[in-house]
């Protein structure tokens, strides 16, 4: 296959489809990225699930459940998109990518290793975490692989809804009692920096980005996306009446962007290494669920086999 021609093809904004010929490293890049994205949706259910039983009103409880359900749905789309890349040898199918995640060989977004400690965190997760995810996903709508790009279109719609819901939770708290507002401020303080780190390392420290950009999988740099997220989010925080936990955050008239302080990259690297507040807990929850329910799959297979025997008899 002509590699230059492929680059030319995707750079002319053409979509690659499952049956198209594609370079192996393009395929691998996508499988890794899409399945990681899928795992993030699935693991991302857990911090929020921590608050279902304690959600403070029926309406909020239902919205939260529905949101988590959407995330499971996103996981499904994404696993399907990843599976279209299966060429019989690269393990792009859902079971093997999921297994790799459970074994710690594949990653999910580090943000879900933070704890959801208060009801306000549910708001902050919607506002900031989904907000940051959307920045990334809107970009990915334009990515060169057809099934992934189409999955993103679907997902983005729901995510914007989730983000508004999260913001609305915080709005309610900020209009409530002092204790409620403090709860919102605490959540912002805890989630602000981790949310900014969702965009990945600074461009200077992100050597893999170039290939992604060339292949039109990624369309914008980490720093550009992060800057856009900050620019959009600051006024939202102001509207809530919350204070950003960054003393260096200030509008730069010349750049027409906000300047901001250094991110706590040491913490980021620690969490990535497995040393976050909930890394072990998240994986253990998923591993335990798999163990506990392994018999269900076996029973279903045994049942299906019997049915087949009946049909063939």
């Amino acid at each position, binding site marked *: 296959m002509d590699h230059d021609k492929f680059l030319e093809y995707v750079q002319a904004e053409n979509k690659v489809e499952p049956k198209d010929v594609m370079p192996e490293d393009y395929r691998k890049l996508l499988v890794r990225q899409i399945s990681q994205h899928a795992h993030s949706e*699935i693991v991302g*259910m*857990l911090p929020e*699930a921590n608050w*279902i*039983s*304690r*959600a*403070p*009103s*029926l*309406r*909020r*409880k*239902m919205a939260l*459940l*529905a949101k*988590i*359900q959407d995330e*499971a*749905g996103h*996981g*499904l789309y994404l*696993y399907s998109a990843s599976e279209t890349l299966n060429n019989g040898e690269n393990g792009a199918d859902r079971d093997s990518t999921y297994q790799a995640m459970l074994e710690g060989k594949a990653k999910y977004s580090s943000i879900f290793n933070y704890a959801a400690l208060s*009801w306000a965190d549910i708001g902050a997760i919607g506002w900031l975490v989904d907000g940051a995810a959307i920045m990334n996903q809107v970009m990915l709508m334009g990515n060169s692989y057809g099934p992934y790009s189409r999955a993103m279109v679907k997902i983005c719609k729901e995510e914007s809804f989730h983000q508004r819901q999260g913001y609305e*939770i915080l709005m*309610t*708290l900020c*209009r*409530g*009692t002092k*204790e*409620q507002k403090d709860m919102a401020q605490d959540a912002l303080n805890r989630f602000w920096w981790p949310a900014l780190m969702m965009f990945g390392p600074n461009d200077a420290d992100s050597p893999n980005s170039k290939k992604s950009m060339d292949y039109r999988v990624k369309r914008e740099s980490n720093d550009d996306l992060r800057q856009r997220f900050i620019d959009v989010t600051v006024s939202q925080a102001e509207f809530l009446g919350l204070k950003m936990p960054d003393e260096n955050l200030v509008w730069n008239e010349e750049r027409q962007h906000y300047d901001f302080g250094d991110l706590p990259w040491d913490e980021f690297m620690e969490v990535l290494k497995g040393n976050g507040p909930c890394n072990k807990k998240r994986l253990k*929850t998923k591993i*335990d*669920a798999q163990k*506990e*329910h392994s*018999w*269900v*799959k*076996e*029973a*279903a297979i*045994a*049942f299906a086999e*019997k049915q087949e025997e009946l049909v063939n008899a």
Partner: protein
Amino acid sequence: MNPLYKYTLKIADDSLIFGQRLSELCGKGPYLEEDIALTNIALDYLGQATNFYKYAAKLEGENKTEDDLAYLRKEKEYLNAQLAEYPNGDYAQIILKVYFYSVYLKFLYENLMQSSDEQLAALAEKSIKEVRYHYTHSSTWLKVFAQGNEESKNRVAEALENVWEYTGGLFDEVEGEADLEKLDLIPSSKKLHQDWKSQIEKDFATFGIEIPTSDFMQKGSRKGIHTEYFGYILCELQYMQRAYPGCTW
């Protein structure tokens, strides 16, 4: 106390507590697809609970909201069946509980659709489609387990052993049901129980599950008597409302 209020409350309380229990599974189901399906059922329960609480609040006439009723009563004021609060257990037991409850709700709503109370009839009509889907989902899995392998058969049998004695409580009555029945407001609980039993017998015969021979049934459902599990459900359910009284969320 208005008996129709209590009756509406018993329907709402069942749905709330079933929904609360079922949503414990969210994120921890056996497949992603099942996680979605079961969350969906939990959501339907919570939606039905909300609707019936709203109506109950109206019947009570004390300007309460659905949240006041769901979150701010004391343990003995909840009129749900004990089956709702019984722990999830393994997936066989979860499915069995949903199955038993779906058959009950199917007959309940089909009958309530004929109620002389238009509101109740409308609420039942609104909910019946959901419940039919729950029935299909749970009975499909129940059949798979009953006819799957040795382990799944044993699990169904054990779940049945645990849960059977709580099924009768679904049909226990709140004060004044006889009067409501005379006014064609609600169906007879005894009749519902018979219909329910016939359906179970029919299905179980198909699936190859033996109906327990014991006719012992736990007492106290619909009367504010609960299992020891229930208090813990309320601890979590009510925590925020109790710790931050009077707040809007």
